[in-house]
């Protein structure tokens, strides 16, 4: 594109006439167009840089720039040296830090040397005048547009796209139909089962022992003291050949003992607890984080993800935060050896809500 060097005020007039010349025909809408606007004063007189006037300064700037470029070379060399001079020694994490630090600093120097040098070169030494380039409207000229219309019309006439409507419409139909197989073949992104059924069951069933997470050792009722909280998984989870995490993501449970006078149990859940010991799903009913923080004093469970708070003393109902539903309760009892066991699976789906959850 044409770019004119402007020198001070003279081209100011040029700028002004440009405004007149291009005063576009497009509607200004509700813009106010005044006749007595203050006119554009044109370009101010140019200011010279010290490097333009003082040859000594110019030479100094030249030296600075090439010095920076040299520094960059030094940095790159240092980076390679650091790569070999600071190897990672197994079992010594500090060597990783040193390798990271010195390799990084070398590369940094290599990059910043070039960067700062080039910018300084452009600012101090390159021809510093501002240049002016004219803008033209974005739209094509009338001829160009007429030509484009002509081409489309010719294309239409020669193919008969509008005229042969049957051909056109069947083509559109075919194009709409082709992506359908692409959608269908995504079905096998997951196995054939019905996910909704899977969501409604966990590993828990009658007689399954409550065991510690992650060791898998069973828990005696007598071990659960007031104020303690156990992170619990169903017995057999650790031995699973597959789907260990998937089952854990549904079956994780928290176990706590509350003083009997604090425990407020629902009528229909009589017998779900054992001697003040209650078990609740650890999977937040909001969007599924593990509700891992237990406050012994208040018997509140706090979800660290979005701070939903559940009151264990009152069947884990929501007292704060975005969760909508209480944590599902796992009915428990003890077996003849005194170990805590489940009385059944959860009686409702655990974790976040889904469309078919209540069905």
């Amino acid at each position: 594109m044409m770019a004119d060097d402007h020198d001070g005020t003279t081209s100011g007039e040029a700028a002004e006439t440009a405004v007149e010349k291009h005063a576009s025909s497009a509607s200004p809408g509700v813009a106010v167009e005044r006749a007595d606007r203050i006119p554009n004063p044109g370009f101010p007189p140019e200011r010279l840089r010290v490097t333009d006037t003082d040859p000594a300064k110019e030479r100094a700037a030249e030296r600075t720039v090439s010095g920076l470029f040299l520094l960059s070379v030094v940095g790159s060399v240092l980076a390679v040296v650091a790569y070999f001079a600071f190897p990672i020694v197994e079992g010594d994490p500090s060597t990783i830090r040193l390798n990271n630090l010195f390799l990084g600093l070398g590369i940094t120097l290599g990059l910043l040397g070039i960067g700062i040098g080039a910018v300084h070169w452009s600012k101090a030494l390159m021809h510093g005048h501002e240049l002016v380039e004219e803008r033209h409207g974005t739209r094509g000229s009338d001829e160009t547009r007429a030509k484009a219309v002509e081409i489309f019309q010719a294309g239409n006439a020669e193919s008969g796209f509008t005229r042969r409507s049957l051909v056109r419409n069947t083509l559109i139909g075919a194009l709409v139909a082709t992506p359908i197989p692409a959608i269908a073949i995504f079905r096998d992104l997951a196995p054939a089962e019905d996910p909704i059924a899977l969501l409604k069951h966990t590993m828990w069933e009658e007689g399954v022992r409550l065991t510690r997470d992650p060791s898998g050792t069973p828990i005696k009722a007598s071990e659960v003291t007031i104020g303690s909280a156990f992170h619990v998984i169903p017995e057999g989870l650790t031995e699973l050949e597959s789907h260990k995490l998937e089952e854990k993501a549904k079956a994780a449970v928290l176990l706590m003992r509350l003083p009997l006078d604090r425990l407020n149990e629902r009528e229909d859940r009589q017998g779900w607890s054992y001697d003040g010991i209650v078990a609740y799903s650890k999977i937040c009913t909001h969007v599924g984080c593990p509700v891992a923080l237990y406050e012994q004093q208040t018997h509140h469970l706090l979800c660290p993800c979005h701070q939903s708070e559940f009151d264990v003393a009152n069947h884990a109902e929501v007292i704060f935060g975005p969760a909508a539903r209480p944590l599902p309760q796992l009915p428990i009892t003890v077996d003849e050896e005194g170990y805590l066991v489940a009385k059944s699976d959860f009686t409702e789906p655990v974790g976040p809500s889904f469309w078919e959850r209540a069905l």
Partner: protein
Amino acid sequence: MRFTGWAANYIDERTSASTAVKTLGRKIFPDHWSFMLGEVALYSFVVILLSGTFLTFFFDPSMTEVEYEGSYVPLQGIPMSVAYHSSLDISFEIRGGLLMRQVHHWAALLFVASIGLHMLRVFFTGAFRKPRELNWVIGFLLFVLAMALGFTGYSLPDDLLSGNGLRIIDGMIKAVPLAGGWISYLLFGDEFPGTDIIPRLYVLHILLLPAILVALIGAHMVLLIVNKHTQFAGPGRTNDNVVGAPVMPVFAAKAGGFFFIVFGVIVLIASLFTINPIWNYGPYDPSPVSAGTQPDWYIGFADGALRLIPPHLETVIFGYTWSWNVLIPLVGLLVFLAAAALYPFLEAWVTGDKREHHIAERPRNNPTRTAIGAAGVTFYAGLWAAASSDLIATHFRLSIEGVIHALQFVTVVGPFIAYFVTKRVCLALMRKDREIALHGFESGRIVRLPGGEYIEVHEQLDDYERWKLVSYEEYQPLMVRPDARGRITARQRVRASMSRWFFEDRISPVTQRELESQRH
């Protein structure tokens, strides 16, 4: 020199490169510090591509379970996915691996941040106006893609923290009416977490999303060249010219140098500051979680939106569950993003201005737009702060309930306050500009008049300085007028009331006549 000539000729005879050089070589780019924000975004993306390519040579996205045998002692013997194992190996076994991981992560944070700031610059200066509305939309898509790339990348190491992020995504997807459970099942290839999600995200992260991103960056750049860059008002600068430095050599040197500076600063940060120390978190396990963990900053607003919803919002209708506690934030954010994407079209409709605009406005000179922007920023900031509600509460020893309620207030009422205050401030600034343009500024020189009175001498601006203060666009509210058939359409009425909302309060620029009468 002979070689250069020969090579140039060789290439031109085969590519017509001289045409490109002729058209683009002396293109003019105006200069302003805020124009560099977009450049930072572009350059950090190049850094992301380079460091990311290095990482792909060593990363293995498989979710097969293995036992850790690497050199990081605390995790030895612990079962984990191959993906997590190989992320640890990149950090601990490969020289420069940790550096590249950190470069990649820091550059990604900077990438999204600079896009965000660049968008704010474009918004507040009205640089999205005709003919750049479509480029605004492309830029918006780039922003969304950048966040998607960030999130998919963040998930790849399969550590405890990123796994929890995926768990949250899973929970949100499940809340989608009709198909949520199915979508989650298909996405994860099984029940959550399954063994497919990391490889799938990996393909999205290194292939599909970057390909779209690169294509859109290309389109963004082409339109930038076609439309030419906006410039701020200044003496000699008009709507019909571009004033600045030519690509060859000044802009090329400056921009090229700036690329190296951005790259260098990212590497410097990466060599000094640890980011995402996955070895501290351990492999993903659905059961443990640590308090006080944070997502990457750009996910904060979505996470915060989830936190600010009051309890118990869920209804069951005919047996089907509507999880409003997830759907409201989700839809709210989509509406917010859509509003940002479509704003240029709204403003164009309200003003009815069909002219091209190449002068970047000073934010104060369009008070309503600037106020709307400030309201949007406040809304976003409220959500964003909410993502750290627990940290704010523990750090300042406040109750979490108090923090949440305060941020609910900021998010809901804050935007209105911000709108009102910003608009007033803009108008006050315009009034002050007008005052200065007319009467000059206080020189600080006190003079005693013959009558004994003291006055401070006002010094007039010269024409060049004044130009900045008087050369802005002014709009007035639309008058409702009956159309050709003598009717006033509802559309017209809406447009009129919108334009009243936009332009009722306005300050006209100083005119030539006012200036002259002031002088005499």
